[in-house]
Structures are given as structure tokens and as C-alpha cells.
């Protein structure tokens, strides 16, 4: 668990950018091809198990935990970032 002195305060835009960067790196696509409102299943051509891989990377990166049922109905990076932001 992060100490209070180590907490990094992020804006939603920063969180979105970090998630896009993580997704680009994990699925080996150019960062420039991803946009916040993209449907990540369609854009990255991934299924739910691969989405859980991304969720794991996001959780590790932000040091948060997001129950995967909170991803129900979430298919774009912006909404995913909002879910993560709510846990920071």
C-alpha cells in the first residue's frame, strides 16, 4: 500500500493517457493509433481474457484494485479511466 507521502495525484486526463500508453505497450500497437473514446475490444481486437490482462497491468501500475464486474458494460478507455480514477 502506498504511503500518503507517495500518493500521486492524477487528473482524469493523466489517467487516460497512462492507460492508453499501457494498452499500446501491452498489445504492441502504436500509441498514436489509440484514442480515449475508442472501443478497446474492437480497436485492439481483444477478448475478455485479454481485457483482464490489461486490467491486471492497470491495477499494478496504479496500485489499485478494480473488481472486474465494474468493467461490465465498459468498452472504451475513457470510461475505464473513470473507474480507475474513482479508486485513486
Amino acid at each position, binding site marked *: 500500500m502506498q504511503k500518503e507521502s507517495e500518493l500521486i495525484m492524477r487528473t482524469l486526463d493523466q489517467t487516460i493517457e497512462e492507460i492508453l500508453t499501457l494498452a499500446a505497450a501491452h498489445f504492441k500497437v502504436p500509441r498514436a493509433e489509440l484514442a480515449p473514446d475508442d472501443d478497446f*475490444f474492437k480497436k485492439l481486437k*481483444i*477478448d*475478455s*481474457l485479454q*481485457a*483482464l*490482462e490489461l486490467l*491486471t497491468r492497470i*491495477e*499494478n501500475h496504479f496500485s489499485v*484494485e478494480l*473488481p*472486474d*464486474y465494474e*468493467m*461490465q458494460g465498459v468498452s472504451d478507455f475513457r470510461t475505464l479511466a473513470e473507474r480507475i480514477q474513482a479508486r485513486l
Partner: protein
Amino acid sequence: MSTSTGKSASWTLTDGVIELELHRAPCNEIGSVMLEDLEGFVAFLEGAREDADAVIMHSSLSAGFSAGADLRELYSGMQGLTREEREAGVRKFLERIHAVLNALDASPLTTIAAVHGVTFGGGWELALASDLIVADRTARFCFPELRLGLIPGFGGIPRLKRDLGNAVVRDLLLTGRSINATRAHTVGLVSQVVAEGQALAVARTTAAQIRKFDRETRLTAKKFLKPIPYAELRQEIELFCQLLARPAVEESLRKFVESTETMPYLP
């Protein structure tokens, strides 16, 4: 060195450590083929108990340790059978897999599951039968059976209850959520969390450490510390069969098997 290769799993014995490698694409689904290999492995384990100190189970597939029961085989095996025939077939499979996992659980050797990626359902139950779990950062644990109207059937609930606080078990079983390796480590389920791709290497180092110590002492400690909940394991089989008999479960299995959706694994 002693080696054996099956269709879905292979094992070697080298310098007192037995390594079981799971390698059935796409993600080591546990159906009749994997079960047969695991039964062969357990027989080998029994014969090698005087020559080895530790066992490491791992997967060579990038997707993960194991996605659990082969639901496609389960569904297809149910077709054209009466309710009684279905229950008999499933019960027989469960009794066989329980025998395998109970043998691993009770092994006089110290067992280590080195896991990564998808470690779901029966795959998680296989890992839970080991003494220690070493997980890399990609590992994710889940009992998705809830989504099919089932409970874990390979001994997951009694073994989770043995290892974790009841509140955590309730969270997992009543929401069907997955947890990452960090969380699993925090709650005490995972012994070590390591960098991506390093679970097997760290498991080998751990096995080397284990081998330094007196065998009889290790075995005595293990038996004392790790009771096997045989009565609850049998009860789990009964409950699983009761739930499986419901028409809604077959419908859920059909949807899963026929699904082209991108989100069958998200609750």
C-alpha cells in the same frame, strides 16, 4: 533424469525436484485428456516419492496456468443423455479429479505451483492443492463457475476456506470476481509475487531451499499444518451435481460454448 511426456502434460525428475509442465492449448483446460495425464503424473509421483523432495507445477503456455474445466467437453458430453446419465458421468469425472488433487494435496513431497496469467476455476483448484503458490505479476485468480450457475467442483471451496479468511472467500464466491497476484499475496494465498515470466525460476530456487532440510521433519510439519478436508470435499461434489442438474446450467453452458461475445469472462 527421468522424463515422461503426455498429450497435455509432461514431467521430469531432476536432482530431487519433479517438474510438471502443463502444455495443452489454448489454456490447459482440464478435460478427459488432461485428467488422464494428471492421473499418470500422480502414479509417477507415488513411485518417485523416495527419489524427490519437491514438485513444481507450471504451464508453458503464454495464456496462463490453466483456465479450468473444459466447458466445451462438459457441454458436449451432456448432450443426448438422460439426467441420471449426465449426473453419473459428471460425478465420475469429479471423483477422478478429486482423487488426483487429494493425492497432490497429501503428497509427502513439498509442492509448489508456479503460476502466471489465467489461473481460473479448476486451474486455480489445481494450484490450491499445492503447498505454496508462486505467482508472477500477470497472474489472475477467479472462480467463474458462479456465472454458469455452478460452484467450484474440483475442491476449490474447502481448500479456499482452509487457506483464507471467510470474508475473502465470500467475496470471491458470491461476486465471481477475479483478483490479481498482489491482492492474492496480501490475503495470504500467494507465497511470493515475482516479475513477469519469473515464477518458474523463483519456484526452483524455493525448491532448492526446501531440499536442504530433513524430509521427515518437513512431512510431519506438512501433515500437522495442512489437514485435508475430505468430508467437505465430498460435500462439494454433491452440491455441484445438484446445481448441474438444473436446466439453467445447461443453458449457461450452451451460451458459453456458442458465444462469440468478447466478454464471456467478464461478470
